[in-house]
C-alpha cells in the first residue's frame, strides 16, 4: 500500500517536472531552425541576443528569431553578415532603425518620442501612489468636527421637529 503511494507520488513529481521543463522551453520551441556559421562563439551569442531583441516588421508580435516571414529571414541574414563583418551591437541596431524605425527594436532608445514609453510606466505608478495616498488621507481625516454653521442648522432642524435626532 505504502509502496504504491510512494510510486504515485514519484510519478506526480516527474509529471510536474516535465510540465515545468515544457513551459521553460516553450519560447525556444517557436524559434526558427536555421544554421549560420559563426567564426566565434561570442558572435553567436550576440546573434542570439540581437535576433531576440529585433522585431519583425511584418508579423508584429514576433522577434526576428521567432518569425518565419521572409523579411525576418532577410533581417537575420543581414544581422549575421553585419556581425561577421565586425560591426558593434549599436551599429547594427542603428542600421536596422535607419531602415525600419524604432519600431524594429523591442527595447527602443530612451530618447526622443520613445522616451515616453520608458517614462509613462513610472509616471503612472507615481500617479497611482499619489491617488492612493490622498484616498487614505481623506479616510483618516473623515470624522472631522462639524462647523459652527452646520451645528446651528442641525439644531434648527431637530428643534422644529421635521427631523428627529
Amino acid at each position, binding site marked *: 500500500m505504502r509502496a504504491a503511494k510512494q510510486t504515485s507520488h514519484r510519478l506526480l513529481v516527474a509529471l510536474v517536472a516535465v510540465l515545468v521543463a515544457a513551459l521553460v522551453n516553450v519560447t525556444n520551441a517557436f524559434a526558427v531552425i536555421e544554421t549560420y556559421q559563426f567564426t566565434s562563439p561570442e558572435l553567436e551569442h550576440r546573434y542570439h541576443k540581437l535576433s531576440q531583441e529585433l522585431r519583425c*516588421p*511584418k508579423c*508584429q508580435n514576433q522577434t526576428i528569431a521567432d518569425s518565419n516571414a*521572409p*523579411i525576418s529571414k*532577410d*533581417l537575420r541574414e*543581414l544581422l549575421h553578415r553585419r556581425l561577421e563583418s565586425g560591426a558593434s551591437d549599436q551599429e547594427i541596431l542603428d542600421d536596422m*532603425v*535607419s*531602415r*525600419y*524605425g524604432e*519600431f524594429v527594436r523591442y527595447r527602443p532608445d530612451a530618447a526622443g518620442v520613445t522616451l515616453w514609453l520608458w517614462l509613462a510606466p513610472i509616471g503612472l505608478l507615481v500617479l497611482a501612489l499619489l491617488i492612493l495616498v490622498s484616498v487614505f488621507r481623506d479616510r483618516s481625516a473623515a470624522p472631522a468636527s462639524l462647523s459652527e454653521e452646520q451645528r446651528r442648522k442641525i439644531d434648527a432642524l431637530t428643534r422644529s421637529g421635521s427631523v428627529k435626532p
Partner: protein
Amino acid sequence: MPARIRLFIPLAAFIGLFTLLLRGLSLDPQELPSALVDKPLPKFELLSLLDAEPVTERSLLGVPMLLNVWATWCISCRVEHPYLQQLSDQGIKIVGVNYKDEDRAAKKWLKDFGNPYRSNIVDKRGTLGLDLGVYGAPETYFVDADGIIRYRHVGVIDDRLWTNRLKAVYESLSKSATEA
C-alpha cells in the same frame, strides 16, 4: 465645492481613456511610418527588367515619381495593377521595383496585364527592398525630383485612397521640387 468637483475626476479619467482607446481602434497597427521619410533614396546598382540596363538611384532623378515595390507572387499587387495603369496614363511617373521575383514571370505579367512602369528595377535578392525598409509588397514610395522620399504607403493603392489622401501627397512632391 472642490469636494464635489473631485467627484468628477473618475468620469473625466474615463472619458480621457475612452477617447484614447477609441482613437486606437481606428489606427492600423500594420501601418508603420517609414524611417526613410525625408531621406534620400538608398544607394543601389541594379539592372532594369526589360532591357537589362544598369540602374542607380541617380538615374531616377529629375521628375517626382512613385516607386512601387511589386512581385508576381504578391496577390494584392495584381489588385493594384489596373489602378497603377490609370495613374500612369495620367502621366504620373511610376518606377517599379520587382522584388524577389523571377524575371520571366515578371516579364510575362507586364505583357499580359500591361506595363504602367516607366522602368523596372530588378531586386532579385531583396537588397534594395531591405535598404528601403520594405516589409510587405505592394509598397509605394513617393519620391520627389531630388530623390528624397517624402511618403511611403504600404498596401494597395485604389481610387478612394488616391483621391482622399495620396493625390495631395503626390502634388506636394512637385511643389517641393519647383520651390527648390
